[in-house]
């Protein structure tokens, strides 16, 4: 009995322990299984969250990018664009451009269509005159837009095209002013170096003339040398002006007074050349923020050109009026006019039709107007005359230098 008891005891003691162990093992396995299931579930949730988060991020990246982005299909039809894309073109909603096609509406340079289709990335800049854009836009004036077009690949096959657009107007302006500043330094250094020898040449010539050297022929030659030295000096001065525009103070100016002053200065010269000056200024002209000296220079150039176009005399009419956000001033002459080939090139530095011209007058004017965020344009008809139009922004008050 004792044995049995002990055996039974042993048994009762043993069996529960064995079962317990097994159960515990199963329980443990179940538990870890459950745990791993929960972990997996958690992981899945995490992954889903990450996926959602990642999608959000890409959406933000797309929508909030300052670069305009559009996706087009293989035919070039636009599928989706971001906010910046609409803003750069001044469009209200996507509905405004559902018709837009990459290959026909985005001014793709000829030849680049082929390049894009064969998988190349293409970049180009285009000038947009939003006042005559040909589509409904909230933007105004002339802006430069930089396009980058890249094919979208999936497994080596083009499945569409990405169009990136940026307004590059400001960047161009900065680059231009940097270029001019650099040119200014170069010119300033050059002026120092060149003006000394010019002074020696002119001084020698003038001195020789004073001393009565040589015969009449020699003296004529000396006069030419002297004149040419000062002509060279005037070219350098104008070039310096051309490159140093912009670093000046601007103040609110009453253009009526400013114009009167300019007319006063030129009145005598005009009378001598049989030119009648007519004024047609609106009574309440708005003030404009300009550098008066520079604007004077612009009008002097325009008026002198007008006078030169009328060697037999004629009429110059100056009219001024408010036009939208601009003060518009027209200078119209009854001169000989310009052929389109000349008109096209009048703002080019060193382009001149005159024997004694430096070809810098209108180039300087053009740059001055740019610095004032204004515009200078010319219309001309041979035999009828020329009209210069100046637009100066009203209330424009940039940081003064």
């Amino acid at each position, binding site marked *: 009995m004792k044995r049995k008891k002990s055996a039974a005891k042993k048994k009762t003691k043993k069996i529960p322990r064995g079962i317990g162990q097994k159960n515990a093992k199963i329980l443990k396995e179940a538990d870890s299984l459950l745990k791993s299931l929960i972990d997996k579930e958690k992981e899945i949730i995490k992954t889903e969250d990450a996926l959602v988060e990642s999608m959000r991020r890409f959406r933000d990246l797309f929508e909030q990018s300052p670069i305009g982005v559009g996706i087009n299909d293989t035919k070039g039809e636009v599928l989706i664009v971001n906010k910046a894309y609409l803003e750069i073109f001044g469009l209200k909603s996507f509905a405004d451009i559902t018709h837009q096609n990459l290959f026909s509406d985005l001014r793709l340079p000829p030849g680049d269509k082929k390049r894009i289709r064969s998988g190349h990335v293409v970049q180009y800049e285009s000038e947009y005159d939003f006042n005559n854009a040909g589509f409904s836009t909230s933007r105004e004036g002339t802006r430069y837009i930089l396009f980058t077009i890249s094919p979208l690949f999936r497994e080596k096959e083009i499945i569409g095209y990405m169009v990136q657009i940026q307004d590059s107007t400001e960047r161009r302006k900065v680059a231009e002013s940097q270029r001019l500043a650099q040119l200014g330094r170069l010119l300033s250094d050059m002026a120092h170096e060149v*003006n000394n020898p010019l002074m*020696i040449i002119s001084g020698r010539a003038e001195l020789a003339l004073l001393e009565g050297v040589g015969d009449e022929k020699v003296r004529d030659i000396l006069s030419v040398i002297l004149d040419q030295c000062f002509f060279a000096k005037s070219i350098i001065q104008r070039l310096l002006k051309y490159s140093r525009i912009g670093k000046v103070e601007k103040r609110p100016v009453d253009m009526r007074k400013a114009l009167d002053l300019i007319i006063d200065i030129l009145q005598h010269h005009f009378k001598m050349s049989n030119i009648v000056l007519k004024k047609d200024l609106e009574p309440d002209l708005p003030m404009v923020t300009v550098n008066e000296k520079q604007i004077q220079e612009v009008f002097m150039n325009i008026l002198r050109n007008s006078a030169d176009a009328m060697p037999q005399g004629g009429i110059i009419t100056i009219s001024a009026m408010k036009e939208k956000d601009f003060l518009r001033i027209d200078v119209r002459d009854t001169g000989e006019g310009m052929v389109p080939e000349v008109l096209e090139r009048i703002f080019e530095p060193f382009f001149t039709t005159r024997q004694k011209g430096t070809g810098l007058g209108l180039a300087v004017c053009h740059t001055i107007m740019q610095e004032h965020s204004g515009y200078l344009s010319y219309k001309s008809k041979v035999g009828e005359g020329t009209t210069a139009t100046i637009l100066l922004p009203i209330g424009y008050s940039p940081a003064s230098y």
Partner: protein
Amino acid sequence: MRGKNILVIDDERQIVEILDNFLTLQGFKVKKAYDGQQGLDILKSGKQVDLIILDEKMPGMGGTVFFKEVKKLEIDVPVIVLTGSVTMSQIDHSVKKEYKHILVKPVRLSELLELMNKLLASKAKGRSGRKAKKSK
């Protein structure tokens, strides 16, 4: 204005020579210097100088420093500055305002003479006037 003493300072010998010939021809007495220091030495030596023609850009003591040194001497001499650059971009701002008479090279000698005569005449006149102002 014949007989007046003119100090010409320019590192370019050719220019000094031209101005010397020209001014002598016009009856002036010319003293020559080839940099600011030489010019200053002449002034300090107590020699009579009625007008200075000064080149802006010179090696060694340039126009700007020379101008400041002359101010320290407290002598009343008109200065005509000749510069190669229209914009005077390299000129020290503190002196820029003091340069009242600037001619951009190349200068017509007749134009230089006109300005010289004007300054010498007003200096002769202005002396009594300035003294009168001071006594107020």
